[in-house]
């Protein structure tokens, strides 16, 4: 039944220890470091403009309220205040932002400021601009807003009832709803020896909270109608697609510039409302305006990761532990405004069966609005939530049926020899070896001495548990998946751009379309270029940051979705290859030989086998740019190359909801050992191992760094990072005072391992791996379950975030969670 249309050309697994020639695969010193360790980086808040005004937003204290009036007169009287902006003005000057969903979600009206209603605590209602940051705050307090509080809804399931509707134009809180049905779940159910039912699982709301808050400095040129935005938007291509029609201007009127960004993790993708407000202010006040988000505003109003409830999970299992698939009813809570949603409603389908060979999957998926902060594609976006579900399924099934969770995984994992593997909905897992990664993780964590560790812990009165978290990081999106949600959308495929040129003095200059936030793009790009052009990374100048005016951006440019190693470096490789070709052509024309006789070595173009006949790069650059008389008229060489990388995608089959949605699948398998104090619920992670496989590692140190960082974020999310609300809709963890992110003392001892399963589909055999997939969350939940439960008894770990008091609750009232699970054996 499966049709695999691509055959691999190269071996799928690279053994550890292979030394590659050139700079690819080496941990060369990072170009970004020199400026960053000296505090010489340029983050948007470092940029200043003469006479700029500082923006402060007036935000709703109500979770849901009608806005009766906004009176800015007292604010305007304050000396030093330059001006204000209210929702009424925004409604006149702009059109609502483009919505991705089908009706009713399509009818939502989303503006730069709240118009008519505030829909979550922190929803910006007005903006004030003043001479100093402090005055802007003073002035904001003088803005008088009259609210008429409305009933609010803070729970996804409650919201489904549409008793409290957030968006009257939509008439319903449901943003999108649909059923996905692949394989034959009913037959699988009939064929099962056991059916395990899990009534409810919940993936909690949290976010990666980048240390640098969002913001921008916006300048408006009255003569040309041009806006320049110095900011930290990590996907400006898409930002412009939202902002330009809203502002009623052409896309080229919005220039996005950034150099250094202090972390993004998906939190800086939906900044278009605030940016649009700043654009309007810059134009209205005829001066540059600067907005820096407060930490409290970031947590309250911009943005959270998707919160998802999984209901009626049904898993058919054979006697021998083979799982045949699953059914789930998922409710995704996207907060007050969808914005990038409902893409989250399909993106999980990139990893429908997780790491497993399950062929029959049925998912009933609904997304709703609630009066909470809007969500954005936070690290792991939508796949992490779904992969957590698959891991919980495996662990709970194993626990209930008395099976070894390690053996069950190995039995159900996609097997090494099955790659490239087509999933039930047509996604192609390119390469991998999950069982081998698992073995390495178990070895690193000392699995053989597990029983000894358990006895030792128990002798000290502790409960001991070990758990596995397997995850995939699917990278390089086919945006055609959006058509599966809304056939009217005209998005498909993907792209990224790079330019490489050889300057008059022989300098190699590269510009990228991406928007790095610490992933080392300048460095890895220079490695690729150096290898192709036969020079060193130090000889390659990669312009720092992003500028839409460099002519190296395309529709999907940005840094998100674990794709730079494929799309960004694919573009760099394409451009460098083309430039190399031109350099050889030029040298050949000068030497009077064939381009095939030319090689690029040590920053020279020389005739193979005749190192004396060599042109240094400087000569090539000078000849073409300044000394080109006498060159053959048909020599089509500019030494300034722009290349657009396009991954090989088809539009998906809308009828069957079938097709390849992502190009690469990196693996991370983590193992976690922990001890719980049953008196208090406090637990300690005593050992931890993380194994990754991202195909060819371009820069090993950078890959390891991403694994460390992803692990730390996942461990935070597993133990104490959660966004909870009180009954009024106030966020109880609105800043780092209450929202605890791991610090250096919180990190467990970590061991790392890796393999490299080259991707057959990408220009460099590498896979994107920046997100990680939340393996730490899956592993901790599994370890807690292992420590707390016994076959058919004990509590069930049903939430992704398990703080100490939550574990204590599980210990105190096991029957409450125990009843979430039932097993039907035939």
């Amino acid at each position: 039944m499966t049709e695999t249309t691509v055959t691999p050309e190269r071996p799928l697994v690279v053994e550890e220890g292979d030394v590659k020639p050139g700079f690819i695969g080496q941990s060369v010193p990072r170009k970004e470091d020199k400026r960053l360790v000296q505090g010489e980086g340029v983050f948007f808040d470092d940029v200043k403009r003469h006479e700029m005004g500082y923006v402060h937003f007036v935000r709703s204290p109500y979770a849901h309220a009608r806005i009766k009036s906004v009176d800015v007169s007292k604010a305007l009287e304050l000396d030093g205040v330059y001006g204000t902006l209210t929702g009424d003005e925004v409604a006149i000057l702009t059109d609502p932002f483009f919505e991705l969903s089908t009706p009713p979600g399509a009818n939502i009206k989303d503006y730069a400021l709240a118009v008519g209603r505030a829909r979550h605590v922190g929803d910006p209602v007005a903006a004030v601009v003043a001479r100093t940051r402090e005055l802007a705050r003073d002035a904001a307090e003088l803005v008088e807003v009259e609210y008429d509080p409305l009933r609010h809804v803070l729970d996804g399931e409650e919201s489904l009832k549409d008793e409290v509707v957030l968006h009257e134009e939509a008439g319903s809180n449901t943003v999108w709803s649909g059923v996905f049905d692949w394989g034959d779940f009913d037959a699988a159910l009939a064929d099962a020896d056991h059916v395990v039912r899990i009534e409810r699982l919940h993936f909690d709301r949290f976010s990666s909270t980048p240390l640098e808050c969002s913001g921008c400095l916006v300048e408006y040129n009255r003569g040309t109608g041009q806006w320049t935005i110095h900011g930290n938007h990590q996907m400006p291509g898409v930002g412009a697609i939202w902002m330009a029609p809203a502002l009623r201007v052409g896309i080229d009127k919005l220039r996005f510039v950034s150099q250094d960004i202090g972390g993004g993790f998906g939190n800086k993708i939906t900044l278009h409302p605030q940016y649009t407000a700043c654009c309007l202010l810059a134009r209205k006040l005829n001066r540059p305006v600067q907005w820096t988000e407060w930490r409290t505003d970031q947590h309250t109003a911009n943005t959270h990761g998707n919160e998802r409830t999984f209901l009626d999970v049904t898993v058919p299992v054979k006697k021998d532990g083979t799982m045949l698939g699953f059914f789930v009813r998922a409710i995704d809570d996207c907060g007050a405004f969808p914005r990038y949603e409902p893409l989250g409603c399909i993106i999980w389908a990139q990893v429908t069966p997780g790491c497993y060979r399950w062929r029959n999957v049925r998912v009933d998926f609904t997304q709703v609005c609630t009066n909470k902060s809007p969500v954005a594609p936070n690290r792991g976006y939508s796949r992490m939530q779904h992969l957590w579900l698959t891991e919980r399924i495996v662990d709970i099934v194993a626990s209930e049926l008395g099976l070894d969770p390690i053996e069950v995984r190995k039995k159900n994992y996609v097997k090494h020899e099955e790659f490239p593997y087509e999933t039930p909905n047509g996604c192609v897992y390119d390469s991998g070896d999950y069982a081998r990664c698992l073995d390495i993780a178990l070895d690193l964590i000392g699995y053989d001495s597990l029983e000894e560790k358990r006895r030792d812990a128990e002798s000290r009165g502790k409960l001991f548990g070990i758990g596995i978290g397997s995850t995939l990081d699917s990278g390089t999106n086919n945006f055609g998946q959006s058509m599966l949600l809304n056939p009217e959308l005209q998005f498909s495929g993907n792209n990224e751009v790079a330019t490489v040129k050889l300057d008059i003095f022989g300098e190699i200059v590269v510009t990228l379309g991406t928007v790095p936030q610490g992933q080392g793009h300048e460095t890895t790009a220079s490695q690729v270029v150096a290898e192709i052009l036969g020079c060193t990374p130090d000889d390659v100048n990669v312009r720092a940051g992003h500028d839409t005016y460099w002519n190296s951006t395309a529709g999907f440019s940005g840094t998100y979705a674990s794709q730079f190693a494929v799309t960004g470096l694919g573009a760099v490789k394409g451009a460098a290859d083309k430039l190399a070709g031109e350099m050889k052509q030029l040298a050949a024309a000068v030497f009077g030989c064939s381009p095939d006789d030319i090689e690029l070595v040590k920053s020279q173009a020389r005739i193979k086998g005749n190192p004396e006949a060599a042109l240094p790069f400087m000569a090539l650059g000078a000849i073409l740019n300044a000394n080109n008389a006498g060159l053959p008229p048909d020599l089509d060489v500019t030494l300034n190359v722009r290349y657009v990388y396009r991954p090989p995608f088809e539009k998906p089959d809308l009828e069957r909801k079938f097709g390849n949605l992502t190009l690469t699948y990196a693996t991370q398998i983590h193992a976690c050992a922990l001890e719980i104090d049953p008196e208090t619920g406090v637990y300690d992670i005593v050992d931890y191992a993380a194994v990754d496989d991202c195909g060819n590692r371009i820069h090993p140190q950078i890959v390891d760094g991403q694994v460390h960082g992803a692990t730390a974020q996942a461990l935070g999310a597993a133990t104490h990072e959660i966004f909870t609300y009180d009954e009024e809709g106030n966020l109880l963890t609105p800043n780092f005072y209450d929202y605890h992110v791991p610090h250096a003392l919180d990190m467990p001892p970590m061991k790392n391992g890796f393999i490299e399963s080259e991707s057959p589909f990408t220009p460099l055999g590498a896979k994107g791996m920046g997100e990680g997939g939340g393996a730490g969350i899956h592993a901790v939940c599994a370890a807690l379950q292992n420590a707390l439960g016994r076959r058919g008894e004990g509590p069930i770990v049903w939430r992704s975030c398990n703080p100490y008091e939550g574990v204590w609750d599980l210990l105190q009232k096991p029957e409450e969670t125990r009843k979430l699970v039932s097993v039907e054996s035939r």
Partner: protein
Amino acid sequence: MKVTGEKQFEAPPDTVWLVLNDPAQMAQTMPGVESFEIQDDRHWRAHVKIPLGLGGLRMSIDFEKMEEREPEFAKLHAKGNGVGAVLNMDTSFHLSETDGGTNMKWEAEVHLLGPVASMGQRVLQPIVNQQVSQVLGALDKQVQEAKAGPMTSTEGP
């Protein structure tokens, strides 16, 4: 959050009623009142400073008498604004005659919004409890004075 309570006064219901319904006297029972203005017999505004860690939370609170049945029942609505805090409160009290005095049953539904509410969640209950006991203590004193001396007309501070 909801707060309820009961209190006994050694004074007749008429006396307690007059104290409760006289804005000037009520102002003296409320903790932290720095000034107040009477708009009419159903509306008044108080400027208060509620102790909240260092310094205090300053608020302007508008009171509106929604309903009353002299001398046994009254319902008030309060709406307050301060830096980082919005307060909405509905409170009502019932008076009944007892042997030698008055029984007052009261309840309040308090909604606190804004960053102060988010960050102050943990200490909110104790502060509310403290405020309530202060009000009741001051009320007692007011009622004693009213019982003792002639009932004077309103004189604002």
